[in-house]
């Protein structure tokens, strides 16, 4: 048994006491084994100290997804976080060097709080979730018996199937903090679950719909918060990147955020120059190719014009060499034949396009079983250059 202090963010809008109707902090001392969970700590506090402490839970085994909270600032499940670990992390973050720091527990972010640690999942999480049509839309009439699908294609969606709808990723999402309309990590991960399902008949329509929502897949700022928050390894950001790849590259869909043209401008930029030429990138992102320059879209013109004040300030301080392509910039080149080798890499990789899925093969551990056949050869190759 060890003693812990839980510092809980509370809010009791219906309280009789005036000072409890606004948000406030309250500390609870609990005594439990370090391997028990923060949820166990909260329930002890509720039992022994204050029966009005509100927290949502059910399974206590990281299955039902009810107990999402922020512990020491990190969105996670209360039942999956051990008290001992949480206390250590609190002490580490406090940089005080002692082990008895208070464990802070707050309600999830990006959603309204109903009472104490209970948030309104309906107004944000579930609404956004329904936004992506989270059910199968089969291509034709159902088969007489079960659907027969290749195992590999179901393996591909396994990761997004693992979601338990806890909302921890939504709570941690840094784009949603700035844009509450963002469809968000949980819903987009669920969108991929059906986009990647071979039984679904509306793949293009789903992708088109999300690409044409300005708060859709291209509103994600690539902050990795949802990856670290998710208790089930769904890695929502990775699913969003797959949606983008499928929409732009495989289905040729032009999105309203110019996201795909930005991506392709970047890719081509490096093929041509080896290192990034930012002036050219801005220009090409908004108005790609000769056609883009002759017939740019309205949004592209607006984007380019918007960036001009920034560019002028940059030129004044010596930061930038030119306004995006209005005056051609000078960009340094890779020496010798290096650029030819970069081009060769492009040619080969654009042909084979291998996508390694670490969720399936496992990370950093033992080598993939299927790799064994080629293992001796590659070891030889490596030792030759080491």
């Amino acid at each position, binding site marked *: 048994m060890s003693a812990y202090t839980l510092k809980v963010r509370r809010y009791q809008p219906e309280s009789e006491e005036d000072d409890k109707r606004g948000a406030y902090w309250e500390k609870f001392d609990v005594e439990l084994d370090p391997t028990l969970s923060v949820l166990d700590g909260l329930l002890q506090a509720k039992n022994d100290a204050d029966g009005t402490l509100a927290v949502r839970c059910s399974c206590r085994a990281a299955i039902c997804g009810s107990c999402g909270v922020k512990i020491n600032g990190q969105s996670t499940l209360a039942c999956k976080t051990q008290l001992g670990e949480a206390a250590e992390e609190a002490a580490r973050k406090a940089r005080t060097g002692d082990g008895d720091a208070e464990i802070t527990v707050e309600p999830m972010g990006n959603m309204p709080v109903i009472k104490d640690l209970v948030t309104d999942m309906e107004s944000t999480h579930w609404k956004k979730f329904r936004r992506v049509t989270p059910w199968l839309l089969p291509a034709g009439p159902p088969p007489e018996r079960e659907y027969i699908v290749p195992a590999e294609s179901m393996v591909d969606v396994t990761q997004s199937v693992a979601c338990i709808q806890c909302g921890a990723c939504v709570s941690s999402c840094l784009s949603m903090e700035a844009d509450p309309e963002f469809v968000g990590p949980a819903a987009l991960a669920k969108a991929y679950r059906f986009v990647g399902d071979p039984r679904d008949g509306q793949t293009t329509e789903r992708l088109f719909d999300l690409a044409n929502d300005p708060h859709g897949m291209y509103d994600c700022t*690539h902050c990795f918060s949802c990856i670290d928050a998710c208790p089930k390894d769904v890695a929502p950001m990775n699913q969003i990147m797959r949606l983008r790849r499928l929409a732009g590259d495989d289905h040729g869909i032009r999105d309203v955020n110019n996201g795909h043209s930005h991506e392709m401008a970047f890719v081509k930029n490096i093929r041509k120059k080896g290192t990034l030429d930012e002036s050219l990138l801005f220009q090409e992102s908004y108005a790609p190719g000769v056609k883009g320059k002759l017939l740019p879209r309205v949004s592209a013109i607006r984007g380019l014009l918007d960036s001009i004040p920034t560019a002028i300030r940059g030129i004044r301080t010596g930061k930038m060499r030119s306004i995006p392509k209005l005056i051609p910039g000078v960009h340094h080149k890779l020496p010798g034949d290096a650029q030819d080798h970069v081009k060769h890499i492009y040619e080969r990789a654009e042909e084979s396009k291998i996508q390694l899925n670490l969720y399936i093969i496992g990370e950093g551990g033992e080598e993939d079983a299927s790799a064994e056949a080629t293992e001796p050869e590659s070891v030889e190759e490596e030792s030759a250059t080491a």
Partner: protein
Amino acid sequence: MKLAYWPGCVSRGFTPELHGSTALAADALGIELVTLDRANCTGAGVIAEHNQELADTLNARTFALAQETGLSMMNICSTCQGAQSECQERLDADASYRAHINETLSGEGLAYSKDADGFTNKNFLWVLVEDYGLDKLAEKVKRPLEGLRVGPFYGCYVLRPKTRLGYDEHPDRDLYLEQVIEVLGGTVVDYDGARRCCGFPVITMNKETSLRQAGTHVGDAIDAGADCLVTPCPLCHLNLDMQQPEAAKVVGRDLGLAVLHLPQLVGLALGFDPKQLGMPKHIASTIAVEDRVAALA
């Protein structure tokens, strides 16, 4: 200490002061940098979004170029670090995949080897704390930055995901900026934005979302009493500094907070002049910081 050095693209493009100040700071610290001038862009996560194999091969090439020198590698950009670590994770996970990639590189006589002689790729911040050492850094400080209130800004790509970025081995990587600021004699300012996103990745796609992020963090740092921010990421610098006047419009308040690159802050404590460190090139005025530092000298 001698390291193979990947300066990145932005440090030689829109933030030339970063490349320059790194050279000065490294030299004064006695870190010899061997620039990988044949190396290519990391893809910044964008190329990986388009084609994983392409990004992995491009970065395997850079690692192989570094390994040819027999040295470990240093970068000066959170985004380079994150993009390269992502590719390295895949390259290290599967031998047949690695063999396939090395075949592509063979025409140039290059090959990436997993775990070659303790090969590491670390950004300047990690190098400073883990390899150079804070004690040694403290000895080099000529002008402790007393009274300078500095807000750390990390950049997502050196913070998350933790499993990929070596936090199992180095759990305090999300506290290094605080440690460095203190060793340089400055005061750490706690504010909400330190580990949040600058918004740069969506600047061309959703400008409003992007600038709201940048503007909010700069504003929070001002409210917490910061004299400046410090960042190890030039892309964060673009949104926090270059776009700061635009971000101010989006969040509807005056901003005007200097944003320093990490080597600039180190350089100030090592006794360099703000001009040598390229600070006048910034968009948000660095004059208040310069005056404070001048008063210390």
